[in-house]
């Protein structure tokens, strides 16, 4: 579904500057859940921005469903790493979530329902009438997640979406996300720093190494219908964890 070939991105006008992403090639299947791991500054965010068509790549090729990506594709939602600045301070939480729906052609009634549902799912049911700047950091992050979920995208890009929530809430959101993914058959690209989370969620985990090319790729063969306790107790889980840990730590490990 999504094909990335030889992607290269250099910031600034000088093409000889150090690239943020260099020579990245991979594909993502339809309805696949792909997690991306990588050290800080290795180019994960840059990659997502290129894939989403928000910034042009310096060279290389990206295609989605066979069509080259030149701008943000339809039916895509993006949860930004810098969530607090992606919320609009002049809109209430509810309007922040409902805002993109109007332009997707969802009628007002349904938009309301979707918004309420999404806010409820992320545990912000009572906060709809607040402004983003009246919320705690974790709540703001959840508003951004709710906005993406309510949008019902067919491809969802998430950049460390659970970084600011507590472990408890995080588990809940993980399961929520898996539920949504299974129910609506969406494709997810999920950047995280948490190896456990990556293994728990993904069909496949890509490890990026600076400048972001895929240094390691791990297919997660854990059964679906995952469960916070059972899955994490699975011996394969531990093995995958170890493999990814090693891959992040040192060079590529022969699989």
């Amino acid at each position, binding site marked *: 579904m999504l094909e990335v070939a*030889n992607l*290269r991105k250099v*910031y*600034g*006008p*000088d*093409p*000889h500057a150090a690239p943020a992403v*260099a*020579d990245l*090639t991979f594909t993502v299947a339809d309805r696949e859940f792909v997690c991306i791991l990588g050290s800080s500054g290795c180019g994960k965010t840059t990659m997502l921005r290129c894939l989403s068509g928000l*910034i*042009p790549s*310096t*060279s290389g090729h990206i295609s989605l469903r066979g069509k080259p990506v030149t701008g943000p594709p339809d039916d895509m939602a993006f949860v930004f790493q810098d969530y607090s600045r992606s919320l609009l301070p002049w809109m209430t939480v509810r309007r922040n979530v409902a805002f993109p729906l109007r332009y997707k052609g969802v009628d007002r009634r349904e938009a309301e329902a979707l918004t309420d549902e999404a806010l409820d799912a992320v545990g912000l049911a009572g906060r709809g009438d607040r402004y983003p700047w009246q919320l705690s950091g974790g709540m703001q992050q959840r508003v951004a997640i709710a906005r993406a979920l309510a949008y019902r995208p067919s491809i969802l890009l998430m950049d460390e979406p659970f970084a600011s929530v507590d472990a408890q809430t995080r588990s809940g959101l993980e399961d929520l996300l898996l539920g949504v993914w299974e129910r609506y058959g969406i494709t997810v690209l999920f950047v995280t720093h948490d190896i456990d989370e990556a293994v728990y969620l993904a069909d496949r985990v890509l490890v990026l190494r600076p400048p972001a*090319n*895929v240094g*390691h*790729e791990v297919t997660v063969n854990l059964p679906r219908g995952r469960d916070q306790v059972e899955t994490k107790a699975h011996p394969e889980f531990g093995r995958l964890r170890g493999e990814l840990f090693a891959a992040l730590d040192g060079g*590529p*490990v*022969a*699989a």
Partner: protein
Amino acid sequence: MSLEGVQTVGSARRRTARTADGLPEGRVRRALGSRRIRDLGLKVTGVLTVLVALELCARLGVLSRDWFPPMTDTYVELAKLAFGHPLWTEIGRTLSGWALGIGLAALLAIPIGVLLGSNRTAYRLSRVVIEFCRPVPSVALIPLAVLVYGVGLEMKVFLIVFVTFWPILLQVIYGVQDVDPLVYDTARSYGLPPRARFFRITLPSAAPYIATGLRIASAIALVLAVTAELVVGAPGLGQSIVVAQSNANLPRMYALIIVTGLVGWALNTAFQAIERRLLRWHPSQRAEVAS
């Protein structure tokens, strides 16, 4: 999927990428070199469009020949003026008033604006006076200014300061109120003394607003310098306009008006160049710097 395979393919690609660099690089550099030229082209196009429109208006009789000298006459006069040193003397006279006036206004308005923008009590204390003085028309004050300061430079400077002070002040107040509170908290938590907070936090944060304010004020100051010269006959471009007008020398009058506009444009260009340097970090300039 074989990882060795990925690895070798990766390194091979890296090599090709490096050799392929030459091409996009050349293109980018050319694009860079041409951006200046393209901008210039755009500006010239903009000006030409207006000139052609004016000429068309004149030709089609929207602007009557009787009342408007043919544009060509004006251009000829403009060219003649440009080569005589008196024009530059007059521009110098006008600009000295401009520079002193706007400098003084900025010097006064920026600290006061920061004070009023950050201190509610001070703001409330002075609000009535500010809002009362702001709309007082400078032109009506000219006789008073002349009485107190005579017809020389001081009068011009007084008028310019009186009028441009307010726009700068307001912009500074709005700018100060737009400082991100988290940035401010950062400064406070690190115990920055008030002076440092002013120079390090408030001023840079408000800088985009102040820059706009100065650009607004710059044009107003020029307009005012010329107006004062026009009305009371202090030496400068404005007086030259009066003289040309009183002698029914319309081409020269319009040529001088055009000169005034050109001076304004030049001043703004200078301001923008400074702004581009000082505000590199601001989103409004970033887009032009990066990608």
